[in-house]
Structures are given as C-alpha cells and as structure tokens.
C-alpha cells in the first residue's frame, strides 16, 4: 500500500493512478441515486418500469415533471415563502445576538450562550408536544406563519453561533475607534458591523435556507393540512400514493431537491463554510 514518492526516481506505476481510479468509482456511487431520480423522472408513464430502472429513457418525456409540478407546486410555494421569511428573520436575529455575545459581553453571557446553544442539539421530539399545544393556543397551528415562528426560534442557537464566531474575529480596535468617534452599541452595529458581515450573512443565509427547506419533522407535525404543507412532506405523501406513477415520484423528488441543489451548485463555497461553522444536519 505504501507509495514510494521518493523524488529522485520516477516509477512506472504510480499509486496516484490507483487512487484516481478509486475517486472515479466513488463518483459513480455518489451520483447513482441522482441518476435514478433524473433518468426515471424523464421517462414517460408507459416506459417507466422496475425491470429497466437503470436504462436511459428511449425518448425524453416531460410528462412526469408536468404532473409532479401540478401536484407539488402549491407546496413548493409554501416552502419558498416559509424559507425566505424564516431565513431572513433568523439571520438577522443571529447577527444581533452574535454581535452582542462576542463584543458586548457581560457577566454570565458565555454561560447563557452555552444554554442557548444546547437548544441546537436537542432531539426536537422532546419539545414537539408542548410546541403543538402552544401553537394551537396562539392560533398558529397548521399555518405557515406558525412554521416560520418555529424555524426562527429553533434557528436562534446556530445562527447566533456562526455570527458570534465571525464577529469574534473582527478586531476590537475597530470598535474602540468607532467609540472614540462617539458611536454606541447600536450605531457600531449598523454602521460598522453590518457592512463587514455580508459574507457571514451569506453563509448563515445558505445554511438556514438548506436546513429549513429540508426540514421534515416540524412540517409534518405542525401542519396537518396537505395543501398548507411544505414540499418535503408533500413529496413523502406523493411517494406513498400507489395511484401515482413511479416517474412522477422521481420527477417530484428532483423538483423538491432543486432549490437547495441550485444553491449548492451556485454558492458551494459558502455552503461549505456554513456547514463547517455550524456543522449539524437538522
């Protein structure tokens, strides 16, 4: 197994070639489920069958996608509305909290932050029952605003964490200079910190967008009404419906995955930063 990379002599067989072959094979494994979804989503209802799952479609058909879109588009809209509002609100809250907890510490603030952060790690099953009852009480149960509230509140720990780490790296001298110029807690934030934290907003925004879009547990418990549900729940329902053709389910999976996939492809670098900074899959 040991590669001889002695710089002086060149060998004919490179271990690098073997490692390269492994990486190429790994690509096949990682793309396999995506291949299955896309290929079968593009087949028409007559062609899609269990015995030809791996075959390319004989003719491309948008039929599956049309049907999937017809069924899922109201839920796509629900998800989009929920995700955009919840992401903006929770990013802003995280920025304020992170700023105060890194630059305006007070006795016990680190301890309070740790208590806050624990909220990120709890299995949400342990709060679901009181949560549902609380939402029923304030008349937000089964509604998108209720779901937004849930995502914003349970997003506080991680958005605060990422912003706190980000602001901690901004030198205190900058704050002191602003204070000499007469700026206070609020104006330092609005005039100095926010302009500096655009990258952090992008990272947190992508992190929250992905997490909230991909959420299943809150959506399925807080919103029982199918037409008000986010797309992840609608997709799960679709895949459990036997009257629906298989190509429609596969197209539906592609449709539901598309927003986060596009975010990943376009802004992968920020995605990686976000997962390293607040690395947990909801």
């Amino acid at each position: 197994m040991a590669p001889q990379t002695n710089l002086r002599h060149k060998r004919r067989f490179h271990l690098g070639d073997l490692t390269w072959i492994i990486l190429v094979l790994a690509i096949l494994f990682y793309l396999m489920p995506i291949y299955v979804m896309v290929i079968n989503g593009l087949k028409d209802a007559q062609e899609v069958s269990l015995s030809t799952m791996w075959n390319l479609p004989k003719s491309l058909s948008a039929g599956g996608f049309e049907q999937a879109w017809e069924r899922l588009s109201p839920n796509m809209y629900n998800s989009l509305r929920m995700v955009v509002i919840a992401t903006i609100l929770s990013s802003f809250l995280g920025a304020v909290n992170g700023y105060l907890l890194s630059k305006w510490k007070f006795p016990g603030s680190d301890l309070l932050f740790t208590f806050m952060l624990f909220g990120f790690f709890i299995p949400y099953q342990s709060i679901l029952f009181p949560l549902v009852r609380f939402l029923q009480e304030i008349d937000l149960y089964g509604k998108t605003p209720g779901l937004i509230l849930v995502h914003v509140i349970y997003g506080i720990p991680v958005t605060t964490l990422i912003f706190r780490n980000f602001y901690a790296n901004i030198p205190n001298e900058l704050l002191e200079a602003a204070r000499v110029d007469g700026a206070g807690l609020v104006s330092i934030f609005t005039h100095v910190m926010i302009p500096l934290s655009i990258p952090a907003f992008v990272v947190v925004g992508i992190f929250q967008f992905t997490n909230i879009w991909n959420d299943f547990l809150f959506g399925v418990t807080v919103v029982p009404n199918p037409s008000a549900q986010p797309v992840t729940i609608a997709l799960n329902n679709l895949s459990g419906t036997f009257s629906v053709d298989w190509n429609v389910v596969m197209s539906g999976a592609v449709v539901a995955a598309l927003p986060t996939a596009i975010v990943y492809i376009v802004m992968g670098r920020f995605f990686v930063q976000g997962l390293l900074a607040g690395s947990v899959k909801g």
Partner: protein
Amino acid sequence: MTAIPQNTQAASGSLLEADIRRTPPFRFSERWQSFTVLLPSFIAIAVFVYAFISYTFYVSLTNWRTLKRDMTLRDPLLQNYEDLFDNTRWQYDLRNTVIFTVIFILAAILVGLGLAMLIDYNRERFAISFFRNVYLFPYALSFVVTGVAWRWIFNPETGINLFFKLFGINDLVGHELKPGWTTDPDIWWSVNDSLEKLWPASGDFLKANIGLPIALIPVAIAATWQLSGFVMAMYLGGMSTISTDIREAARMDGCNEWQVYWHVILPLLRPITVSTVIILLHVSLKIFDLVFTMTGVGPGFATDMPAIFVFEQMFKATKYNLASAASIVMLIMAAIVIIPYLIHSLRKEE
C-alpha cells in the same frame, strides 16, 4: 462550484472556537443595553427549549394517554418509563439505534476520511474540486428526497438486484440472487441466548431479538452516502490548516507518502474526528426523515427508530405519556453526548 475554504473553524475541532481574549472596558449601562437586547432571544429559548422540555418531562410522569387531558401523576411515578422499557417495540428501537449508529458512524468516518486523503493526495490533479463537490452534494439534499430514491434502489424487484442480472452475477452463481434488502426480516447473530447464560435475569425483561437486523444495512448505506461528504469536508478543512512544512519535514526524515498520512497528518486531525463523531452521533440518535421515507418501521420493526416511535405514539396513538417518556430518553441520550462537548468547548474558550 468552488474550493473548500482555507480558513475555517473546524481545524481546532471546536464549535465554540471564537476566542475573545479581550473585551473592551465598556460602561455598565452598555452591558445592560446588551443584556436587554438579548433578552427576547433568551426568553424564547427558555420557553421553547427549557420550559417545553420540562412540560414534556411532566407529561411523561402522568396518566395522560388519550386525547383527553389528564395531568394526574402516575403511581409509581416512573411507571411510564417502566412501561416504555418493557415495550417490545421500544426494545427493538433501542437495538436498532445502537446498531445503526455503530455501522453508520464507522462507515461514514472511514469513507469520509478515505475520500479526504485521496483528494488531498491528488490535490494537484485536474478537476479535483469537481470531485469534491460531487461527494458533498448529497449533504445539500433533503433526507426525504434521498429516502425516496434509495427506497427504489433497495427495492428487491429492481435497483441493486438488477445489477446481479445485468453484470451476469446470477449466471455465475447459477441461480437468481435476490436479497430482500429493506424487506428482509432476518436478524443475524442474535445474542439473546448467550446473554441469558451470562446474565439469567435478562431473559425476564428482554423481549426483542437482539442482533443485527439485515434491513438496517441499506439504511446505513443511504445515511453514509448522504453524510460521508460532510465528514470529508471536515477532514479537508483540517488538512488545509496543516502546513506543507510539516509534511516536507516528515518526508525529509524518510517517511513515505503513506507514513506521512499515518504518522503525521492523522494524529493532527484527532480533534476533528472527535467533533465529527459527536455530530454524527447526534444525527444518528435522532434520525427520522430518512428512515421514515425509505423504509418506515420495516419488517418486524427491523428499521424502526426511537424518533419514529415517538412520532407515532404521540400523533397517531395519542399515548402522550408514553411518547413523552420516550422523547425524554432520546433527549438524555443526546445530552450524554452533547453536554460534555459543550462544557469542554466553553472551558477551552476561557
């Protein structure tokens, strides 16, 4: 698609890496301002996390097992917990969690570390960042989406089993290979008998067949597929902070490329392994969406999980007390993993 960032928090392996060495000597009133602005968030967390957990815990001690609210305490107080651990399905769930966790974490760490090393080794190659981005891509997708795809890949009538036909493996072995995958109810290596010999009392309360449920393996493969890219990204983040001087020095001392990884780089990555394992543990202890969409409870509860148990007992069977007790057990399992980690991170910061 772009590169893994060079400067990340992951290298030290701490979530609370932000190190505030010096806080400017601000006036008292501004500290109060800070506290006041933070107060709504603190209250929200106090209510939605701590008060809600307390409520759930209280319900777990009561007689509330129908739609009708009943907050009278059970006698004995912990009877719901006793009922829970006496419940065969819950015993299956605990078995499944432990086995799934072991397989999934070992596989995800090995695959993720392997990919990170291979990528690091080939970092000069053309299109390597494309490879890296493909491996991480599943992490951006919802468990529901991938659960739907994997469900069909491991369907015995199609998917993987078609490969046996397509690649001629069926002809080779002389009969049709058709593993049941997620529909296989078999439990391998059952330990009940040997356990009863070692500890006779175990037969009295152990109702579940303790062994390796075959149907869990496809689920662990799907979870590994989805999260090994994340593990890879964590390790690559760590490797990028190891200076090339250290590698060069090791080579000068006569290490070959493999020894550089084994003796120099891997030991330096240990803190990352710790954080990654903790994060994966936390994912696997509460795994829900993937299993729910891919297999559901499985044949003979072979792929049932505590999270599914809580969900069904709470919202379908409305056994609120039992479901609450189960969710508190889940919380305790997560807390055992997370609290030492948080305390460690906080100490390190100070």
